[in-house]
């Protein structure tokens, strides 16, 4: 394969070029309620090529080997067109030229588990919620994505890496009268099929939540102090803060870039945040990014002071900061962009009980329904939470959506728990949909969040 890729690379007239060929194997089993609605196992592939010439950088994606010539022509034209029109020529930061093969060690290779065994496992878990009368439907999916990547560059890099992702989970929907509620359930990881075994308790617990939610009260709109669960604090870290640590997002937002200067005190002094793609066994784990740069941990914030940033080779040169190995593509359809690997709030010293006592009266918000950011402002949803009165957890509430201002909220994080937890399933919809972005945190205490109510 590398010989073929080198042949294609050899035809391009550029100061720098790279090519990535990928085979992406996907297995899918999907239940909607009792019915199996999908089962398939397929493979797709394609090429992504990038070139830099005279300060202009561009990319092209193609499916068929026969289209390589046409793609090369387009790439050359676009590279030249950019070179003629940009004020600041694109440069690439230096990176170690690597020749390596990395096949991750797996605890049970999903390729060696038969489809019928996978199907029986999904069916077994799916049956758990469905035995309850008030569970009206489920959407439970097994997904296995294996990316076999071949990367080489005109600098001499040659990297072969596999990314194996398996996850099993979905949504459990309950209904009582006209009220519909749901709870999500997750399991999975990057280190093999074994993470999906023995999930009965997980499915039972999540089913109980879907049922309890039918009795929970909707949340009133308010401004209040809140404790966020590790998963929710992780979503906050990813959405509200993490994206603005991605250099490509702020590169051309001058006001934001000024605010996110390294050395700025942006958070409270208890807050430290790191992104570490090298934590094995996590969904965000990889060895080399899709520019061939070795991944490394980057501390983004230390005691509230901004200390680092996530980079591609292009942005590292633009910012004059160290490369980090965070330029990653979803698959064979995309050139790489800057992404978080495993981002998390570093654990503090407080137990959940101590945080509850610090909170006194407020909300304890438990699960995520995802979030979104618009720079300084963010929104995220939680599936459920509990009222807290006098430091004690009281009744369950549902339909909680929160919004806040990033800079104010970073300063309003006043308590950090000692119970760091990382997500079992990844996902980020920045431009492409990457399933290998992981996040986490311990429980945290945040003041003054706006609750949207229902």
């Amino acid at each position, binding site marked *: 394969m590398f010989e073929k890729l080198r042949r294609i690379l050899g035809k391009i007239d550029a100061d720098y070029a790279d090519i990535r060929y990928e085979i992406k194997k996907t297995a899918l089993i999907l239940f909607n309620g009792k019915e199996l609605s999908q089962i398939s196992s397929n493979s797709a592939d394609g090429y992504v090529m990038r070139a830099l010439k005279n300060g202009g950088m561009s990319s092209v994606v193609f499916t068929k080997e026969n289209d390589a010539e046409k793609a090369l022509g387009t790439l050359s034209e676009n590279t030249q067109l950019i070179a003629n*029109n940009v004020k600041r020529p694109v440069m690439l930061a230096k990176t170690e030229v690597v020749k390596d093969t990395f096949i991750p060690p797996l605890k049970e290779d999903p390729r060696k588990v038969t489809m019928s065994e996978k199907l029986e496992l999904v069916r077994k878990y799916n049956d758990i919620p469905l035995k309850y009368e008030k569970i009206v439907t489920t959407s439970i999916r097994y997904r296995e994505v294996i990316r076999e990547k071949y990367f080489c560059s005109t600098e001499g890099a040659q990297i072969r890496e596999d990314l194996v992702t398996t996850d099993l989970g979905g949504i459990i929907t309950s209904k009582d009268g006209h009220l519909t509620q749901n709870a999500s359930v997750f399991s999975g990881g990057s280190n093999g099929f074994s993470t999906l075994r023995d999930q009965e308790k997980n499915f039972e617990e999540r089913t109980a939540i879907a049922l309890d939610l039918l009795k929970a009260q909707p949340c009133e709109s308010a401004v209040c102090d809140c404790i966020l669960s590790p998963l929710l604090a992780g979503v906050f870290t990813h959405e509200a803060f993490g994206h603005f640590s991605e250099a490509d997002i702020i590169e051309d937002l001058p006001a934001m870039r000024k605010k996110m200067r390294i050395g700025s005190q942006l958070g409270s002094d208890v807050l430290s945040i790191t992104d570490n793609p090298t934590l094995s066994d996590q969904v965000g784990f990889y060895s080399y990014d899709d520019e061939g740069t070795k991944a490394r941990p980057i501390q983004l914030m230390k005691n509230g002071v901004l200390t680092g940033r996530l980079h591609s080779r292009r942005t590292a040169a633009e910012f004059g900061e160290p490369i980090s190995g965070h330029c990653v593509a979803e698959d064979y359809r995309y050139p790489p962009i800057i992404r978080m690997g495993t981002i998390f709030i570093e654990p503090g010293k407080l137990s959940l009980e101590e945080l509850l006592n610090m909170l006194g009266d407020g909300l304890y918000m438990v699960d995520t329904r995802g979030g979104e950011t618009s720079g300084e402002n963010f929104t995220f*949803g939680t599936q459920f939470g509990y009222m807290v009165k006098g430091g004690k957890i009281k009744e369950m509430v549902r339909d909680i959506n929160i*919004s806040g201002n990033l800079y104010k909220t970073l300063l309003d994080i006043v308590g950090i728990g000692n119970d760091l937890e990382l997500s079992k399933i990844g996902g980020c919809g920045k431009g492409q949909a990457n399933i290998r972005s992981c996040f986490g945190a311990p429980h945290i205490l945040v003041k003054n969040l706006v609750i949207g109510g229902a």
Partner: protein
Amino acid sequence: MEKLIQMAKRVCDQAEIYSEENTHTNVSFQNAQLHDIDSAFQSGLALRIIKDGKLGFAYTKNLINRDEFLQNALASLEGKVVANYEFPLTKDLPPLHTYDPSLENLSASRMVEEGTRVCDLLQSQTNGEIFLNSSNHITKIRIINSEGTDVSSKAGEYSALGGIIYPGSASAILRSFENKTFDKMPDQMIHEIIELYNLSSKEVEPKGGKMKVMFMPNSMFTLNWRILTGTSSKSIYEKISPIAHRMGEKIFDEKITIYDDSLNDKYPHARSFDDEGVVCQPLTLVENGVLKSFYYDLDYGTKLNAQSTGHGYRTVTSFGAYEAITQQPSPALTHLRIKPGNKSFSQLLKTIDRGVIVEGSMGSHSGNIPNGDYSVGVNPGLYVENGEIIGRVKDAMVAGNVYETLKHVIDIGDTLYPSFLGAWVPAILCDNVSVATKK
């Protein structure tokens, strides 16, 4: 493809091949400067087979070995996914004009020139940060099946999404221009961006509460998503739609009429057949506030003893990058329209004594979507008093239930704008919507 269908017919009852070819070039400007040009040439095909009432599925990017590909689909029959429907025989489709050959000759340099023009115009009249993404996209689809259907469509679209970002944020006033062929972004659209941005550059912190809320086309996506979930045959079948038993009843204000407009080739991506080869036809979901129909694909049509309404698409009802060949068809309404009213934006604005214009929304994927609940951050939100935009409100959330909100429609705008996922809708001004702020 024909050969593959013949091979499949020998070993199963029915077969269908969906093939797609895509070419696109994207040009992006950041901070009013050219930043990226990316191109792609992609293709692939998907095979569905039915044997003894069971479904098999396979896809590939490169059809190298037909036999292996067919074997893969046959292997998936083992899962015993029930398929009691039949692929249609579709002929005599209405001719649609979806493709203008001039798009094929549109150069990236012409797109750069137009992008530079728009960025310069926006920059000359504001102090914001300018961005623009334009795209030239050509898609070819062909569906053949064992019943004799052989239909194809070639569609082109030039689009430009541009706007002004409030410095210090990533929040923007933006507009999307979508056209069947290349054209300059209309001056009126550019001026609308500039005017709204300049009027809202001041930050204000109004008191929250129930007030008038105008959902602009960019934020209507939040409401559209809930309407599309409630009227989907999949939600009816799964018993999670709150309007399943309300056919013929008034569910919204009488000013609301919602319909599907697949066949209207004035807009890009008109379709005469869906991704299962079923003929598209006009479909009204809600007429003058009264629930008229749900939408079906072949599978859920059969499950609910109804006909497919031509709404089986290989898509997902949310944001995200999906590849059509890797998806199996499911009920999707890809050409949603809401009937416009007769008030201009400035006329609507004048009727707001106190309220928020939601230009865009954040977190539309959060909340209990089947139930119709929404609770979104304003991104951005323009605060209005006595018919005038006073400034921009941050840290605010707008929340409600679509089946309640659309009962209190004051008026509807007279212009349709693109609103993501193929929808074109007007601005809708509603009364008595909950707005949460820090005060």
